[in-house]
């Protein structure tokens, strides 16, 4: 199961906003337990990839490797052709929890890295995720969905070329999740950063991604293109249902 996987879905109009990710013969083990072995994956620039699998299947490990938070025990993880051994400056990460700094206002959280004109940039990005007027609010008064919006704005403010999402909508209620899907898809269409979404929700994967891979026991059990019209309507397309069934079978 170590065949090099190539992209099967493409959006030819814009591929400029992202960087390609390449994993070759990557291995990762924690002590005696090996999570990934000879793992190969190519993510072309600008692709929206969803990684689906059961818990313990290596999804989060894969994402931490791409983010540079953990080092691979074997093989090579490369972004834009360069092997990474630490955090890549154009990679941003959305965690399962929003991880907002409680003692900083919404605006300060978005502009966490500060930098020139951070207030103005942060304000604009907040408006972009639909949180205009909430700049001064403390994170503790925001709802779960609003917090993830702030986290998304924080990730987007530096114009990342790769966005990694580690089940960021898992804790949200169904309606808020659909809102977040629409928001993320809209922003992705505008910016075309390479996106890796880790999720256990097959419907979410089909609703958002160009390509879905199923990760089972550290190997790719299924690699499938999702060629549906964008922007997508939640479950409107019968072929989406068929795709979901196919993916579920592989999980």
């Amino acid at each position, binding site marked *: 199961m170590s065949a090099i996987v190539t992209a099967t879905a493409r959006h030819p109009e814009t591929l400029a906003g992202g960087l390609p990710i390449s994993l070759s013969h990557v291995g990762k083990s924690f002590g005696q337990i090996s999570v990934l072995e000879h793992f190969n994956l190519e993510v072309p620039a600008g692709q929206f990839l969803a990684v689906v699998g059961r818990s313990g299947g290596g999804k989060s490990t894969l994402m931490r490797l791409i983010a540079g938070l953990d080092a691979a025990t074997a093989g090579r993880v490369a972004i834009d052709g360069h092997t990474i051994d630490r955090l890549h*400056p154009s990679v941003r990460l959305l*965690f399962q929890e929003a*991880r907002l700094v409680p003692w900083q206002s919404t605006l300060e959280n978005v502009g966490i890295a500060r930098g020139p004109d951070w207030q103005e940039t942060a304000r604009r990005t907040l408006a972009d995720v639909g949180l205009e007027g909430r700049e001064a609010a*403390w994170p503790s*008064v925001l709802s779960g969905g609003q917090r993830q919006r702030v986290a998304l704005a924080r990730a987007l403010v530096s114009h990342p070329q790769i966005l990694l999402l580690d089940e960021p909508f898992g804790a949200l209620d169904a309606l808020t999740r659909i809102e977040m899907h629409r928001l993320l898809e809209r922003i992705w269409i505008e910016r075309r950063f390479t996106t890796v979404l880790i999720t256990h929700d097959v419907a979410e994967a089909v609703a958002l991604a160009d390509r879905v891979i199923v990760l089972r026991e550290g190997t790719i059990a299924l690699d499938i293109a999702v060629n549906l019209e964008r922007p997508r309507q939640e479950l409107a397309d019968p072929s989406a249902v068929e795709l979901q069934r196919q993916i579920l079978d592989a999980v």
Partner: protein
Amino acid sequence: MADVSVAGFTADKGRRLSVTGLKKALAPWALPIVLLILWELATRTGLVNARLMPAPSTVAVAFWRALVDGSLIYHTLASTQRALIGLVIGGGLGFIIGIANGLWKPAETLLDSTLQMVRNIPHLALIPLVILWFGIGETPKIFLVAIGVFFPIYINTFYGVRTIDPQLVEMASVYGLDRKALIRRIILPGALPSILVGLRYALGFMWLTLIVAETISAPSGIGYMTMNAREFLQTDVMLLGIIVYALLGKGADVATRAIERRVLVWHPAYQTGEGVTQ
């Protein structure tokens, strides 16, 4: 939608304040007032020996006398000055070492186990030694206060730094914060609630240490005033000294609460109606 509920909340709060606000403000004072009245009655009726336990009215007269002749203010200032110098020295050291040990493993390895050992010595047990070392001037009192406040501040600062959410620290590194920004924006503010708890404990120890130190030997201060009064069997002045200590302790507590409300505005526990609308 949020605005509607917030407006409802403040309106509701305003109504409650106007109707039961007075009752609420007075409630904590009900018990002390009742006790004072009983105490006054007990001494007046001779149930309690007024020579050993003077009536509140007698203490009030003593208070007025001491206030008018300036001795009360003089002694209170003397005590407060010692307390604050000791607090700044001991608390400052506790804070610095707490931060250093929290952030830097070698410092912790070197210092923490020793400090934990020393911590268990009751610092007041040092009094005979301290008198030998420093005599009976200002130094021994400030020294004892400094030791008394050092440990609560040290332990809580260290604990505060250590219990910073590692997920936040990881987030900060993903978002490119350097070490200086990490300490200033994540670690120090995150440790602050714990540091303030340490400060509150420290203020308690501060007065406690000072009372004992001043009772042993001092040319001024509330402790001196009380011990001097004992020589002349002025029980009213002795009681007055105790009450002044209680008030100073209360004042310190009020001050820390005010600081907490100010610097912990972000904390859900300190948020008022206005904080929500921000």
